[in-house]
C-alpha cells in the first residue's frame, strides 16, 4: 500500500458529489428517522391497542365474584383503590368488553359458541380455581397477551378484595395503605446527576444504536453496489491506469463515508434544534414535563469514533465483495455473511441495555466486529471502564486496518476480473499474489 495522494481526493470528491446531488440521498435523510421512529413506536401501539370488542362469558360458579370482575373489566363502578393496587395494562389497552355472566355452564355449548365466533372467550371461576390460584381462559386464539393480562388483573383484584373482606379487613383502607410508588431514574455521570426517565434513556439508546446500525447496513450496501457498478460499466480500468486500485478503493470509502457523515450531521443538527427548550414546549404532542434525552459532546464523539471504525471495517469488506463479483445478485450471497455480523448486535440489544456490565456485554463489545454497535450501546447506557473502551477501540482499529489491507488485495485483482464467479480458493490466491 502506498500513501494515498491527490487521486484519492479527486475520486472521493466525485463519489461525494454524485451521491449528495441525488434525490435518493435527500429522500433517505428524511425517511430514515421517520422509519426508525415508526419501528420503535408502531409495534407497541399495535400490540396494545385491541380495537375490537372482546365478547367474554364469565362463568362464576361461586356466585360471589362475577359482578366484581365485570365491574373491573367494564370500568363501570370499579373501585379506585383496587385500580391503584393493580393498574390494569397500559393506557392503550382499553379494549371494550361485552360481558355475559353465567352462574352455571355447559362446557360443550360454550366451546361451540367460541368456535362459531359467537363469543371470543369464556373464563371459569369456581372453588377449585380459587384454591389453585388459577382461573382458566378458553378461546380460539390465546396469543392476545394484553387482553388476557387485563382479565387476569381484574379477577385478581376481585378475588383480593373478596379475600380481604372475608378476613375482616376493609379493602379500601388496605388498598390505600398498599399503594405503589414510582421509581424516578437519576443518571449519575461524571458530569453530575441527570434526571432522565427510563423511557428517555431507552429512546436515546434505541435511536443511537439503530441509526448506527442502519448507516452501516445502508452505506455498506452502497459501497458494494458502487464497486459493482464501476465494474459492470467498465469504467474501472480507465481509472486504475492513473490511480492505484488502493487509491480508488480508499477514495470511494472516504467519499461515501463523507456522505454518511453529512447525513448524520443533518440529523444531529435537527435533533439539537428540536430539543431547544422553546421548541420542545411548542411541540404539542410531547407531554408536559417529559425529560428528553440529550446527546452530550462526549457521547457525540464516541458516536463518531464508532461510526468511523464500523464504516471502514464493514465497508472495506463490502468493497472486496463488490470487486469479486460481477452482479449484485452474485454478491448478495456473500453480503449476507457480513450482514449477519451486524444483526448479531441487534439480537443482543436488550441484553446489553439491561445489563451493560454483564459478562456477555463486556465480552461481545470487545470483539472488533461487534464493538462499533455494542460499545456504543454500552456507552449510552452506562459509561464502561475506560480501559475497556480503549482496548475495544484499539482492537477494532487494528482489525479494521488488517481488513482494509485484505480487502484492497481482493479488490485489486477482482476489479479486473470479468466472467465467472471466483471460488473461495481463488479469492485466497488473489490475496496472496496481488
Amino acid at each position, binding site marked *: 500500500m502506498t500513501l494515498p495522494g491527490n487521486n484519492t481526493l*479527486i475520486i472521493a470528491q*466525485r463519489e461525494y458529489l454524485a451521491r449528495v446531488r441525488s434525490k435518493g440521498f435527500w429522500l433517505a435523510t428524511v425517511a430514515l428517522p421517520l422509519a426508525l421512529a415508526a419501528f420503535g413506536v408502531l409495534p407497541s401501539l399495535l400490540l396494545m391497542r385491541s380495537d375490537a370488542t372482546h365478547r367474554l362469558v364469565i362463568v362464576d360458579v361461586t356466585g360471589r365474584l362475577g359482578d366484581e370482575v365485570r365491574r373491573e373489566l367494564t370500568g363501570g363502578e370499579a373501585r379506585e383503590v383496587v385500580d391503584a393496587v393493580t393498574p390494569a395494562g397500559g393506557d392503550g389497552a382499553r379494549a371494550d368488553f361485552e360481558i355475559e355472566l353465567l352462574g352455571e355452564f355447559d362446557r360443550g355449548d360454550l366451546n361451540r359458541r367460541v368456535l362459531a365466533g359467537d363469543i371470543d372467550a369464556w373464563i371459569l371461576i369456581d372453588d377449585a380455581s380459587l384454591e389453585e390460584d388459577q382461573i382458566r381462559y378458553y378461546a380460539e386464539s390465546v396469543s392476545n397477551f394484553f387482553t388476557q393480562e387485563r382479565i387476569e388483573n381484574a379477577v385478581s383484584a376481585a378475588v383480593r378484595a373478596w379475600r380481604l373482606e372475608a378476613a375482616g379487613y376493609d379493602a379500601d383502607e388496605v388498598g390505600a395503605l398498599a399503594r405503589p410508588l414510582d421509581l424516578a431514574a437519576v443518571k449519575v455521570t461524571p458530569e453530575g446527576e441527570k434526571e432522565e426517565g427510563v423511557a428517555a434513556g431507552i429512546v436515546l439508546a434505541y435511536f443511537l444504536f439503530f441509526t448506527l446500525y442502519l448507516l452501516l447496513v445502508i452505506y455498506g450496501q452502497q459501497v458494494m453496489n458502487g464497486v459493482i457498478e464501476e465494474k459492470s*460499466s467498465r469504467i474501472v480500468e480507465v481509472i*486504475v*491506469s*492513473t*490511480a492505484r486500485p488502493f487509491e480508488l478503493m480508499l477514495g470511494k470509502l472516504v467519499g461515501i463515508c463523507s456522505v454518511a457523515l453529512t447525513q448524520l450531521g443533518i440529523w444531529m443538527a435537527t435533533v439539537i434544534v428540536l430539543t431547544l427548550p422553546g421548541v420542545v414546549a411548542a411541540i404539542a404532542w410531547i407531554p408536559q414535563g417529559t425529560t428528553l434525552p440529550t446527546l452530550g459532546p462526549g457521547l457525540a464523539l464516541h458516536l463518531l469514533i464508532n461510526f468511523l471504525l464500523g464504516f471502514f471495517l464493514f465497508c472495506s469488506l463490502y468493497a472486496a465483495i463488490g470487486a469479486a463479483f460481477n452482479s449484485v445478485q452474485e454478491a448478495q450471497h456473500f453480503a449476507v455473511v457480513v450482514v449477519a455480523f451486524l444483526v448479531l448486535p441487534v439480537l443482543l440489544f436488550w441484553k446489553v441495555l439491561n445489563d451493560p456490565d454483564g459478562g456477555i456485554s463486556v465480552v461481545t463489545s470487545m470483539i472488533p466486529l461487534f464493538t462499533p454497535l455494542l460499545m456504543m450501546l454500552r456507552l449510552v447506557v452506562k459509561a464502561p471502564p475506560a480501559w475497556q473502551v480503549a482496548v475495544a477501540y484499539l482492537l477494532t482499529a487494528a482489525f479494521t486496518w488488517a481488513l482494509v489491507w485484505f480487502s484492497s488485495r481482493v479488490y485489486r485483482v477482482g476489479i*479486473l476480473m470479468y466472467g465467472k464467479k471466483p471460488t473461495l480458493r481463488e479469492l485466497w490466491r488473489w490475496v496472496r499474489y496481488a
Partner: protein
Amino acid sequence: MPARDSDVSAAPAIELVGVHKSYGKLAAVRELDLAVPQGTIFGLLGPNGAGKTTTLRMIMDIIAPDAGTVRFFGRPRSPEDLRRIGYLPEERGLYPKMSVFEQLLFLARLRGLSRREATLRIDRWLERVELAAWRDRKVEELSKGMQQKIQLVGTVIHEPDVLVLDEPFSGLDPINQGLFKDLLTDYRARGRAILFSTHVMEQAEKLCDHLCLISGGRAVLEGTLGEIRQRYGGISYRVEVAGDLARVASLPGIEQATPQNGGLKILLTPQADPAAVLRSMLELVEVREFRRESPELEEIFIRAVREAG
C-alpha cells in the same frame, strides 16, 4: 515532442525487457522484449489469449510483472509517467449517471490537469467531435457511438506523449473508426508513439509501421512491415496450370495450395527452391503462369504462429 529533461531523446518511448508474467502455472507473457520507437504506430498482434492485454496492463502498471522491467523514454517507468500515457483498455466504459462534462473533468483531473485547463480542453474537444450540444447531458442518454467518442476524448484530453490502446477498433462504427485512424496518424505526425493491440490483421497492415506478433505469451515475429514482408516474401506464388491440380498440390516443397481465381495460390516451405518446384511442376502439367506474390500479413502470421507451436 514535449520531452522531459530526463527522457533519453533517441530511446524508445516504451521498452519491455525480459518481461514475464504468469498466473499460477499458466505463463501469460514469457520473456518478452519489445521496443516502441518514438514517432511510430506499433501494432501488437496475436490471437485471443496470446497475452496482449496482460502486456499492455503491465505497461500501465495495472499488473506487476513477475520479472523484467518496463522502460519509458530510456529509463525505468515511474508512477508519474503513467500520466503521460493515454490508455484505452479493452474493457472500457463511462459512469452512466454522470454528465459528459463532469465525466471528462474527472478523468482529466486524475491525469493531473487543473480544473481550469481541463475545462478549456474539454470544450475544445467536444467541438471537434461535434458533441458540444451534449456537454451537460448524462452519459446514459448518449448513443453508443457518441460514448465511444467521449472515451476517445477522455484518453487524449491530457495530451499524452504515448498512446496505449487495447483493441481500439473493436465495436467502433465506421465513422469513429475514421476518427480513431485520423487521431493515430495525427499523433504519429507529431512525433509521438502509439502502441495498440488488435487481432484484426487488416488494420495493422494499413496503420502500423512496426509490428510484433505474440502467441502463447512469446514474441514470434517482430519488425517493420517491410522487413517482415521481405523475410517471408519469397514463399508465396500464384500459379495457373492446365491439368490435374491435385497432383500439383502434392509436389515436394509445397506446403499449402489453395485454389484462387481459377488458379492456385501456393506457399512453399522455407527450404524449397522455387526454380526446382517450377521444374517438377512442368513435368506434370502445362504451366501458364508462375508469379511471386507478396503474401498477406495474415498468412505470414498464421504460419509464424503455427511454427512457434
